[in-house]
């Protein structure tokens, strides 16, 4: 159970993983559009209904492209041409599947009211909003689940990278940490350039 949750890549990789991963990313995009959840960064979850469905669909794909681009380059440096690109692409796309949980939880606990409250209270934007205990509990549940989803996704990405490169020891850990930070920075730059309005909303 633990292995299949955190490392399903001993059994699935390549084209099958890519198909499952891309389907999951597109489904997540649709659910994000319906719930007003933006995945505007490799490790980001924000709430705003701004943007068309194409933006929501593109966000997941851009996140994936950033991780794959950076980790492929690092893979070439540390492992040379020993890995198959389709395995890295497939496993990393599957590693984004946990994000499917976030918009589903946001549908149960909508965050717009809390967001409006925070915007008015701390930035004096919009109209005054009062929130109840349930809104705060919902906000906490979404925050905790969001964090767990990010940790789960990082564990999956690490295992995907480790299995595809077949390198052990501190070298793989350090290169993964550097790669993830670089991918996050790259994704934030891309979203800032192509979707500045959405970024300002958060």
């Amino acid at each position: 159970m633990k292995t299949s949750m955190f490392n399903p890549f001993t059994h699935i990789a390549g084209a099958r993983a890519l198909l499952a991963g891309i389907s999951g990313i597109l489904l997540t995009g649709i659910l994000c559009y319906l719930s007003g959840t933006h995945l505007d960064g490799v490790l980001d979850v924000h709430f705003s209904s701004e943007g068309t469905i194409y933006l929501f669909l593109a966000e997941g794909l851009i996140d994936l492209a950033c991780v794959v681009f950076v980790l492929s380059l690092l893979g070439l440096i540390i492992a040379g041409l020993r890995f198959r690109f389709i395995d890295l692409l497939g496993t990393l796309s599957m590693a984004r599947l946990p994000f499917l949980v976030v918009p589903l939880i946001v549908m149960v606990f909508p965050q717009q009211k809390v967001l409006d409250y925070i915007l008015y209270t701390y930035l004096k934007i919009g109209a005054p909003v009062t929130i109840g205990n349930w809104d705060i509990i919902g906000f906490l549940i979404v925050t905790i689940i969001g964090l767990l989803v990010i940790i789960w996704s990082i564990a999956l990405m690490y295992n995907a990278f480790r299995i595809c490169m077949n390198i052990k020891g501190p070298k793989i850990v350090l290169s993964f940490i550097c790669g993830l930070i670089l991918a996050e920075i790259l994704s934030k730059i891309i979203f800032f350039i192509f979707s500045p309005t959405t970024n300002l909303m958060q």
Partner: protein
Amino acid sequence: MSKSFPLNCPSCSSKLKVKSLHCDKCGTSVEGLFDLPPLASLTSDDQMFVLHFMKYSGSLKDMAKHLNLSYPTVRNMLDEVIQRIKKIEVTYNQNQAK
């Protein structure tokens, strides 16, 4: 009950050698001191892996499908077996040179 082939000494963990061979059919016994060939020095799991590798004509893709494992997992297993064979070969060649 199938007995597993011992590779290391249970007392000091050194590599075991073959001292005696016996023909079941005619009862002839040969005594001496023989090194195990490199492939026989692999663990039974590694030997099974090599057998599968041969049976599937070296196709890791087919092996992965048959073993219900992903391609990179099988390729990583192969890399590990290769590393172990290289180590065994070094020891074997050193023993042969003595």
